[in-house]
């Protein structure tokens, strides 16, 4: 019974989250619960704070010295802004995929292993065979294995954009993250690439909690279980995707979905 409750607990919970870039407030009192092992899409016009919210969840924002945050963000039941929290551990649990695919200038194989090697205990030897298995498993998970199995030593930066983006997802998997954050992961891809990556995201659902920002209404509709609509730094509406697109509660949501915003 207890076990089950834990599994149902939301993966990410923010409570009255406010964020300032210097004196400019980008997020206002965000209360958000992201369901575990579901795909949650974040939509809203440009500049409404989607990226900011996403980047708060793995605390990458604070690298900019002038960012100030109040409120709390819990990931898997733990407040990640507690002083004893280690950023390295946060980022192990919370992987991030960027708008532009950014494979490292290494081989495909080394890209997949990068995170794993980073988090490996000092002095622990992992055999080449084990590494091969890790690589194959991750690449299979992102439906890339068959395409690249014969050129694992080739440069990752020479892959097609869509494949690069899949690789960027694959390299997060070997450290077994719980949450995958994706910031418009398809916006640099052509329609075919977009479809392929969407399919993949849908495929990963169930094993990972996915929070994805998208500009593409059709994508949000097709590829998410829940949908969050933001406007001017505020969370306006958060419901099941099918509900949001059929019967939005708020006028602003309806306007945005129907394309009446920029």
């Amino acid at each position, binding site marked *: 019974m207890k076990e089950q409750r834990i599994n149902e607990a939301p993966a990410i919970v923010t409570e009255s989250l406010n964020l300032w870039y210097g004196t400019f407030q980008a997020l206002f009192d965000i209360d958000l619960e992201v369901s575990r092992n579901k795909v949650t899409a974040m939509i809203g016009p440009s500049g409404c704070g989607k990226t900011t919210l996403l980047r708060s969840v793995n605390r990458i924002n604070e690298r900019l010295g002038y960012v100030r945050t109040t409120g709390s963000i819990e990931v898997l039941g733990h407040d990640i802004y507690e002083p004893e929290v280690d950023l*390295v551990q946060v*980022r192990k649990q919370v*992987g991030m995929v960027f708008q532009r695919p950014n494979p*490292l*200038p290494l081989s495909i194989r080394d890209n997949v292993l990068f*995170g794993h090697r*980073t988090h490996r205990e000092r002095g622990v030897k992992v055999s080449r065979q084990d590494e091969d298995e890790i690589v194959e498993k991750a690449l299979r998970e992102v439906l890339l294995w068959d395409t690249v199995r014969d050129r694992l030593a080739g440069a990752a930066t020479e892959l097609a954009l869509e494949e690069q983006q899949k690789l960027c997802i694959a390299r997060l998997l070997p450290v077994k993250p719980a949450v995958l954050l994706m910031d418009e992961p398809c916006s640099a891809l052509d329609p075919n690439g977009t479809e392929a990556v969407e399919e993949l995201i849908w495929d990963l659902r169930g094993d990972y909690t996915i929070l994805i920002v998208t500009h593409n209404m059709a994508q949000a509709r097709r590829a998410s279980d829940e949908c969050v609509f933001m406007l001017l730094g505020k969370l306006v509406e958060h419901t099941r995707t099918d509900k949001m697109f059929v019967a939005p509660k708020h006028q602003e949501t309806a306007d945005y979905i129907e394309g009446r915003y920029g």
Partner: protein
Amino acid sequence: MFETTTLNEQNRTVEKLWRTLLLVMTLLLILPVLVILAVLVYKGGPVLSLDFLLTEPTNGMTAGGILPALIGTVWLVSVALLASVPIGVAAALYLSEYAPENWLTRALNLAIINLAGVPSIVHALFGVGAFVLFFRFGTSILAASLTLAVMTLPVVIVATKESLQAVPQAFREACWNMGATRWQTIRKIVLPNSISGILTGVILEVSRTAGETAPIMFTGAAFFLPFLPQGVFDQTMAMSLHLFVVSTQVPDVPEALPYGVALVLIAMVLAMNATSIAFRTYLRGRKKW
């Protein structure tokens, strides 16, 4: 409907004028370099020979070759490189990869820019005070090379920072987001992708000091030493000082000799520059992003 108007024509004339003017300015700029090279080759060419490079000066430096000066300059530049590369690269790594955006960083960057403008004679005096006297290196290759190193540190840092900054920020973000520390990011991604650029840039900057005279004159370079340096605590002759000496300090030097020395000095610097530029071009071509 698409005929030229008078306005079009006027604009075109002005355009042509500017274009020509700018071209002429550019040509004027390289003219001195060409003239210098031509004069050096014309006047100094005749004294050049293998003997000239491989023997010592004789007859009160009015005859013979330049071997000790040549070897001395190689020593000075090499030791200066050894000193300035690690320090300069470390400073640049800090400033580019770690330094937060605050007043200290701004002050450091400002200081580095200003240091680059300190006249070389001031560096020379600093070298005497610091290396020759305070650290008791005496007038030696070590003291002279360290003076050269201090003098080139600002440009070394700037060149290194440029190479580091040429590594796309997206790579760093990718690493940090996978939980890599700054140092892991530097070691695995930033340095491997910039080290060649750093080295070529640094070699380029430091090799320029082969021509410096003031900083080595009081710190380690000698007028005339008929033997080759055996270690960093020896004094040495140097090409730049030798050129100064045979041009102005020694009577009855044949006219061609200083030109020959100058030609070899310039050839040395150009050769180092050319090598590092070629190296850089080659590596740029290989870049994968």
